[in-house]
């Protein structure tokens, strides 16, 4: 049976659309992709055993979990040696409720819109599309206050659309969070769509799938598999949001993160901070895992309705309005940022180099940790990935400081900033790599087993070339997140390390809001260049 036949067979037998061996890989061109299945099972299992046993699959969780413990244990020790008591009060429940409410609404809007936008962008062509797609990386690199100011210059009381929309309150928080996370969701869903085998689309075309059928049977299964994970990531980002929530929400909009910050900073009540963090960790973990389980209970595609396909007009009538909405949310604040800052460009070479250096080091580190986690998708790797995002960075940073304070070394400070950045970006790196790996493992495990190709040579000949695009995308997401980081550099850096975001913060603290706008333009431009390069590297083989 050839690849096509197998695919159709799968569809008709109500099995998830699984890629056949007919992938674009040059390597496979002249080979029979279907060895006898009995032999296949054995050897493929052997392959998996090799991966599971190898250091690669265990080193990474061990490193990550010890890094997190290195943050928690000293803080616990500190709490026990400095007596302080903590009681749960009604205030905490109010805070928890608001945290969940705003995070749920923000991530719901961001993921739903992101899903539609990713699909629309994959199906439409318009002038300046690649420019717009590259712009999607920018918001993630911007310090929160820069985003708030960019949004106020459009929607604020004195903004271009002044008075039309009240941004002070929940609606403003949601708007800012959607501006931040819609592009992220779009990029992550875009990666999911790119991993759909081309054969599926060709088959759909052959079968004259309607728009709706195409979505339901081919795109939705791929999107749905990643939906809970992307929703979870954005939910956690919004739950931990701080500057946006406080600046636009005021005291009635207190989130757990604010309460944790307050207890660590104003009251220096370590037990309270730890209790609140534990609460946040438990609640977030439950929600994210529930989201994961939800997806498992509704397996990929209900393809038995395939006979209902009717021939329909393929015009993507919904796509242009979706793109227009996406543009309307993302483009104006970015334009305001450029227009406001371009006249105040100022080059701080030290900050630029520090940002690039920390960003590159964190990217390499994060990719090295994420590769095995994405490669071997099991409970351990999933928990590890979540742990890196759920434990508040402020808690980890404070714990690390306690553990490492006796070692008086600049290298250690720089190293821990890089490590914390890598840790914070890790869930996003893994999220970008996982769909590609899930696809590739299925496609190549059997083939590599047949060829007895494993270890370094498999990585070199098969995995690396095939992973080129997802790797470039993962590297970009990590780099961009590290570029925008203010937490690690503020909490750990005390040796005069200046990065672009800390420069922006420092300029704003010195009445130099205009210069801060100029620095933000440099940060945005750097980010755009990186996106461009990552895109070029990712598609170099295509």
């Amino acid at each position, binding site marked *: 049976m050839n690849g096509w036949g197998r695919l159709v067979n799968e569809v008709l037998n109500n099995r998830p659309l699984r890629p056949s061996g007919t992938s674009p890989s040059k390597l496979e061109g002249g080979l029979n992709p279907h060895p006898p299945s009995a032999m296949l099972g054995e050897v493929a299992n052997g392959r998996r055993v090799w991966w599971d046993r190898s250091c690669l699959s265990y080193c990474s969780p061990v490193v990550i979990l010890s890094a997190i413990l290195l943050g928690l244990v000293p803080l616990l020790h500190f709490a026990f040696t400095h007596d302080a008591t903590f009681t749960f009060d009604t205030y905490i429940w109010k805070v928890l409720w608001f945290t969940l409410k705003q995070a749920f609404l923000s991530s719901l809007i961001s993921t739903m819109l992101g899903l539609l936008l990713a699909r629309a962008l994959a199906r439409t062509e318009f002038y300046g599309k690649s420019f717009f797609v590259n712009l999607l990386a920018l918001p993630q690199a911007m310090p929160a*206050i820069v985003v*708030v100011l960019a949004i*106020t210059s459009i929607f604020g009381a004195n903004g271009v659309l002044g008075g039309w929309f009240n941004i002070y309150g929940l609606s403003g928080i949601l708007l800012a969070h959607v501006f931040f996370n819609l592009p992220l969701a779009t990029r992550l869903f875009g990666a999911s769509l790119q991993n759909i085998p081309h054969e599926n689309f060709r088959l759909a075309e052959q079968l004259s799938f309607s728009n709706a059928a195409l979505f339901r049977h081919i795109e939705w299964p791929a999107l749905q598999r990643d939906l809970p994970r992307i929703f979870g990531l954005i939910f956690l980002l919004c739950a931990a949001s701080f500057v946006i929530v406080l600046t636009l929400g005021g*005291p009635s909009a207190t989130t757990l993160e604010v309460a944790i910050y307050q207890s660590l900073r104003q009251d220096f009540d370590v037990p309270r901070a730890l209790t609140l963090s534990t609460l946040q960790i438990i609640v977030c973990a439950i929600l994210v895992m529930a989201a994961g389980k939800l997806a498992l209970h509704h397996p990929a595609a209900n393809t038995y309705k395939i006979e209902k396909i009717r021939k329909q007009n393929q015009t993507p009538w919904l796509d242009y309005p979706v793109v227009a909405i996406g543009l309307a949310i993302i483009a104006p604040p970015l334009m305001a940022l450029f227009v406001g800052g371009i006249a105040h460009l100022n080059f701080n070479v030290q900050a630029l180099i520090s940002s690039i250096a920390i960003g590159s080091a964190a990217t390499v580190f994060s990719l090295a940790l994420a590769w095995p986690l994405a490669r071997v998708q099991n409970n351990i790797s999933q928990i590890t990935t979540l742990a890196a995002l759920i434990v508040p960075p402020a808690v980890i940073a404070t714990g690390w400081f306690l553990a490492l*304070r006796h070692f*008086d070394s600049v290298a250690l400070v720089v190293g821990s900033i890089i490590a914390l950045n890598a840790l914070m970006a890790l869930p996003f790196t893994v999220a970008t790599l996982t769909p590609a790996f899930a696809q590739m493992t299925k496609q190549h495990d059997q083939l590599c087993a047949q060829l007895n190709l494993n270890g370094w040579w498999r990585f070199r000949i098969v995995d690396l070339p095939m992973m080129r695009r997802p790797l470039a995308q993962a590297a970009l997401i990590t780099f961009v997140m590290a570029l925008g980081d203010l937490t690690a550099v503020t909490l750990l850096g*005390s040796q005069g390390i200046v990065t672009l975001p800390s420069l922006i*913060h420092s300029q704003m603290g010195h*009445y130099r809001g205009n210069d801060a706008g100029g620095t933000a333009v440099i940060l945005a431009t750097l980010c755009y260049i990186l996106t461009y390069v990552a895109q070029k590297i990712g598609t170099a083989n295509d």
Partner: protein
Amino acid sequence: MPAEGLKACGTNRCLSIIQLLAIGGMMKKLIATALTLLPFAAYAQAKETLTIYTYESFVSEWGPGAKIKTAFEKTCDCDITWVALGDGVAVLNRLKLEGKDTKADVVLGLDTNITDEARNLGLFGKHNVDASKTKVPGGWSDAEFVPFDYGHFAVVYNSETMPNPPKSLDELVNGDPAQKIILEDPRTSTPGLGFLLWMKTVYGDKAEVAWKKLKPRILTTAPGWSEAYALFTKGEAPMVFSYVTSPAYHIVAENVTKYKAAEFSEGHYLQIEVAGLIEASPEKVLAQKFLSFILSPDFQNEIPTTNWMMPAGEMTTPLPEAFNTLVKPAKTLLYSPAEVNANRKAWIDEWLGAVGE
């Protein structure tokens, strides 16, 4: 081990060398990383080193840190190493985390709202500086902390969009809710706490009622001064809570005169920034020398146009002309550090109850 290393060796730099050797192989990678990051290159360590903890903006590109370092290093054969932390509260928290193992010799940048907590750590020694000549309103008599600058808080307004600013705190509280003010959060910001204390000195037990009345006038409560002031200069609201000295910046650096501070008839709440020395520091003599240097003109001359606060000691250069145009509060309001420390938590809860619904 580290603490003993510190005592045996006497300086921080010995400590670092011993430990770097001890950690050995594991560290090599990190060191290599650091070497590739030469912009943050390690500081030269040949002479006596005075380690000073301060807040980030004091030593940033526009802060007074660099010039003060140069000026002090001329008076001694020594080096100043700045350790810059977020703000005054972050400096205090660093001391709480480190306790008696702190690497600081001098701590610069606490304010009188947190000196009581700092004093209770039992780390600070007597400064032995004659601070009677300080120009701080209300005089100075603290044995452990030396003031280095001060500033009255004020409501700063845009005179173009707000021709008739409030003339008292009461007028602000009871004024037109359509004309908004941007405040800072007392939980996360020093000026935010300043405004809370100001309300408390004026309204006392009735502060909660006053907060409820003021609430419709508050556009938003930003996490920090930078965020609040940036929204204000963007034109989001005609008023912001800042310092009496804020208009001086706009005059000196931007030649803009539309931003003014409103003089309030009840008086203005005061912030005094202080420095102190660590009793157990091996560099105590040098630290004491630095604390007396703080009140000298070499230090004080830098303060007005870099830290944008009023000098606590004599200057040899005249204050820039813009400072003469500023509001000079007739009455100063200030709680003692002990009062703030005893009541802060209860007062913040009261505020949260009034505006957080």
